[in-house]
């Protein structure tokens, strides 16, 4: 990010958004809001103090008098702390929300205004455009936060917080908003003008997920909560308050600070998003492919690594340290089952990221027929790479479970059963991803979105069929579930390798379906081209 202030894209945003009159107006509004907020906090605390004074006069007990003395002594710091918390809360929400939504409309907005092609034909590299947009699009909110920063700093210090804590909160919010900015930018590259509404829903979902990740403090992966800006607003400001409400993230079982965890997670996720953006920013819309095949395998490995690095095995209520850690993994088997389930999602996402555009797939097919390409080529079908990702995920599982062997003793049966589970999940995911690849070859508009909706309908129908079959007998319900979905392998009643026959029959049925989808894809790829431009 060297000399970002001379980046033409950043300068453009600065000029457009921060003209002197507007900048002065924003600064004045922010300062007035700070004053009003300060007065409101003072008024609130004054009210409490007056109540305490009335209580002390009315009841005339030592307890009331002590309370009154304490309030009078800490009156100023309490007001400052309250003021600080309000300031941080408002800035946190404004910064993260504004950054996400302004970035989520950046590229799609340029496409809409038809200025994007002109920017793509300049000498700016994808990296320069990315830096300019990430720092430039939300420049107004950055400026507003900058205006409020001195007041916030003073309020925090006067409220009794250390300089380090105040800076930590700022760094935390900056890192989260940058991550959300990258996420928003990625969403905006995926959208054309007619799908901008979908993009805004996506941005809302991303924001909701980021905020809601706060609840993961109590899960088996408590570190994931470090993505939430609420951690900065609540936990960092509260500091280490002893008691049952204090949660700390762990990295390989060692407690780390929320700030460090936030920097690790937001930094690494932002890096993956930046990689996808740099690869694709200057590409034409139909040529967008988030990751290369090897990058997708790397991403799957990284996400698997995170599972085991952030894992917090079940240790509730550590009375010695007076802290509570989340944790829902009583044994290695539960970790393995959880990892398989998460890998279903990871493999599906990797499949989505590596779908091949129709044009490239047709060229690959022709080259393959001529012996000039291979099944594992970057422009080929995604299934071989899903297989590789699944193998990598299994290797990571072996490593992860062995690493946690001291806390969660591992037996070989767990790994063997996990292999069967992962195989079944990978087969189902491969079927679904190949179905999406087939959708791309049809004439559907927005084929991936529609394909995902079709898959959603399929799984909803499978749930209804299972419920209907269960009415006649539980065994029939199990068979339907096993034939149509991979859910059955997560049945807690399965011990060791004792999978029911329906599991293996379901596996064979799905392999047959995969073969059929592959044949349908080949058929589509062999259709002759019509002559004449379509652009």
């Amino acid at each position: 990010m060297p000399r970002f202030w001379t980046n033409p894209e950043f300068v453009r945003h600065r000029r457009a958004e921060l003209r002197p009159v507007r900048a002065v107006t924003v600064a004045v509004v922010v300062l007035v809001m700070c004053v009003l907020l300060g007065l409101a906090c003072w008024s609130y605390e004054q009210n409490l103090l007056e109540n305490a004074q009335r209580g002390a006069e009315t009841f005339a007990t030592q307890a009331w008098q002590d309370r009154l003395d304490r309030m009078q002594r800490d009156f100023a710091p309490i007001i400052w702390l309250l003021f600080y918390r309000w300031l941080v809360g408002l800035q946190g929400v404004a910064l993260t929300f504004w950054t996400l939504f302004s970035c989520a409309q950046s590229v799609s907005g340029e496409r809409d205004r038809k200025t994007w092609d002109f920017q793509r034909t300049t000498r700016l590299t994808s990296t320069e455009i990315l830096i300019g947009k990430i720092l430039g699009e939300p420049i107004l909110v950055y400026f507003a936060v900058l205006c409020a920063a001195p007041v916030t700093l003073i309020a925090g210090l006067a409220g009794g917080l250390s300089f380090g804590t105040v800076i930590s909160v700022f760094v935390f919010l900056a890192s989260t908003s940058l991550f959300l900015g990258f996420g928003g930018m990625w969403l905006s590259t995926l959208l054309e003008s007619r799908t901008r509404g979908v993009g805004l829903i996506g941005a809302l979902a991303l924001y909701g997920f980021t905020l809601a990740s706060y609840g993961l403090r109590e899960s088996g992966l408590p570190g994931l909560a470090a993505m939430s800006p609420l951690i900065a607003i609540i936990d960092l400001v509260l500091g280490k308050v002893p008691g049952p409400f204090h949660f700390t993230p762990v990295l390989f079982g060692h407690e780390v600070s929320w700030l460090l965890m936030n920097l690790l997670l937001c930094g690494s996720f932002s890096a993956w998003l930046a990689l996808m953006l740099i690869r694709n920013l200057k590409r034409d819309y139909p040529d967008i492919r988030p990751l290369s095949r090897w990058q997708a395998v790397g991403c799957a490995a990284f996400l698997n690594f995170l599972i085991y690095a952030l894992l917090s095995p079940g240790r509730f209520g550590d009375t010695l340290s007076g802290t509570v850690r989340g944790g829902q993994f009583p044994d290695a088997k539960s970790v393995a089952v959880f990892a398989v389930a998460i890998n279903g999602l990871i493999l599906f996402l990797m499949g989505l990221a590596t779908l091949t555009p129709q044009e490239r797939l047709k060229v690959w097919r022709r080259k393959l027929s001529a012996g000039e390409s291979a099944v594992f080529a970057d422009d080929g079908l995604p299934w071989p790479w899903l297989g590789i990702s699944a193998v990598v995920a299994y290797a990571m599982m072996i490593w992860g479970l062995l690493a946690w062997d001291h806390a969660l003793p591992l037996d070989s049966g767990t790994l063997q059963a996990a292999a069967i589970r992962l195989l079944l999940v990978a087969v189902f995911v491969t079927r679904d991803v190949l179905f999406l690849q087939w959708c791309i070859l049809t004439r559907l508009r927005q084929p991936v979105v529609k394909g995902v909706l079709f898959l959603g309908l399929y799984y909803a129908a499978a749930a209804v069929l299972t419920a209907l079959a269960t009415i006649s007998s539980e065994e029939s319900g199990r068979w339907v579930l096993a034939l149509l979905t991979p859910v059955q392998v997560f049945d807690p009643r399965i011990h060791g390798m004792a999978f029911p026959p329906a599991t293996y029959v379901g596996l064979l049925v799905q392999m047959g379906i995969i073969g059929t989808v592959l044949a349908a894809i080949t058929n589509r790829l062999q259709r002759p081209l019509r002559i004449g431009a379509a652009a």
Partner: protein
Amino acid sequence: MIELLGLRKEFENVLAVDDLNLKISKGEIFGLIGPNGAGKTTTIRMACGLLAPTQGRALANGIDVAREPERAQQYIGYLSDFFAVYEDLKVWEYLDYFAHAYKMPEAEIPARITEVIAQVNLEVKRDAMIRGLSRGMKQRLGIARAIIHRPQVMLLDEPASGLDPKARLELRSLLLGLRDQGATILISSHILTELEGFCTSIGIMEKGRMVRSGSIAEVTAAATTSRLVRLTWAGDSLAVAQEKLAGDPRVSEVNLTTGAGTFRFSGAEEDLATVLGSLVEAKVQVTSFGEAKQTVEELYMKLSTHEVM
């Protein structure tokens, strides 16, 4: 110089451009003609790096546009049929943005902005907000953007389609000025009169293929097996003229009325002089005699329907 080598583009089930080979030399203005859907826009978008070709390469000044896009872009100026601009900037800020985006030397930028603003007659609007400009002014600003970095290759996709007649003339003289400075220009249009007397060579595209290309003289020669000759004369020599022309085996389609007419001549240009000589010898008082040059429009109509005479 622009080179398109075996360029091919497929969209879903459609072959938009098929094995296109083209070389446009320095200082040449090449007009790409064809009906809507012929593949002109796709070709230009591939040539300027906006679209990745399915196969083949596009070179600008010898640099592969797909492989070294940032290096190639310093030589390319791209103008399309829409003139989208950043409405929230001032005129000079807009040009300053693109000058920096094209990585021009910092010291040159202020003078270049002044120069380009003068070229497109926007001096009085230099400090005005773009959102306050008229449509025509925005179009001129778009042209200024395309030439701010002194491109040696101009790729113009139907650039005049939204321009008023005055702006068209200004664009034309601007492009001729660039050509005189050594720029190579590829311009697509289906308004054929726009290219008349302006292009040094043309290419006719249909269904993704280049039907014919070359200098206008070459294309005309290739499209014509006989010349259309127009003549006028004074006095009452209709019968004599008809008799003389009918007696020449190289003459056909004689269509004469009182004092004027046309015929087709299948010989070489110098042989045409002998026809004139025979008419003069026969006391026909010829007042004008010459080959009727075909317009680009006529050429296109012949070639696009494969009606080669």
